[in-house]
């Protein structure tokens, strides 16, 4: 069964550094998403992406964040200057289409630790 994959599984970085989290969505999917979960808190929506542009973003997704689909397979989340409060599990997801009949498939997550 096709899966969403994410790399790395764990990333440790120092405050102020840039990080890029990578995701490979399911190959025939057209919609891509990033969510995050701070330890002990809810899974929160960050951004959705379709047709090479952001469809929607949350208040969390400020100018420090950006997303890109650099080629036909990868979908990346970049944090330009990490802060301690960016420490969280980051989940990538994809769906075949955007309608309500199409569920989102999630990757295993990247745990980001900012020191």
């Amino acid at each position: 069964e096709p899966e969403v994959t994410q790399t790395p599984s764990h990333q440790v970085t120092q405050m102020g550094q840039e990080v890029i989290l990578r995701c490979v969505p399911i190959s025939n999917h057209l919609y891509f998403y990033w969510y995050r979960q701070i330890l002990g808190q809810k899974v929160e929506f960050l951004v959705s992406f379709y047709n090479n542009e952001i469809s929607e973003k949350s208040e969390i997704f400020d100018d420090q964040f950006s997303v890109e689909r650099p080629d036909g397979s990868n979908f990346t989340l970049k944090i330009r200057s990490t802060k301690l409060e960016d420490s969280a599990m980051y989940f990538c997801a994809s769906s075949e289409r955007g309608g309500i009949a199409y569920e989102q498939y999630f990757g295993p997550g990247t745990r980001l630790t900012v020191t």
Partner: protein
Amino acid sequence: AQSVAQPEDQVNVAEGNPLTVKCTYSVSGNPYLFWYVQYPNRGLQFLLKYITGDNLVKGSYGFEAEFNKSQTSFHLKKPSALVSDSALYFCAVRDMDPRAAGNKLTFGGGTRVLVKP
């Protein structure tokens, strides 16, 4: 704005007994509801969804959920729990605001299920 509540942080059940994981929601329009499960070191796996139609929805691994509009609930159930059902369960609602093109999911806080042999 939509929201989801999972009132129980953890549910303990003996293997073979019925399992219920509670979820209540708040939306302005029609609710589109989902259950996901997370096993250790794995991503969120889709279990089932309610879009419209029958209030009892059947999903993967023998799970089902009952949509109750009057109580704004969407409780997850399994008639006979297995030890392998031990995991973290998330209820979610889809944002159907016509102004929102992004199809984002709003999640509850999660309920840890522990099934004991």
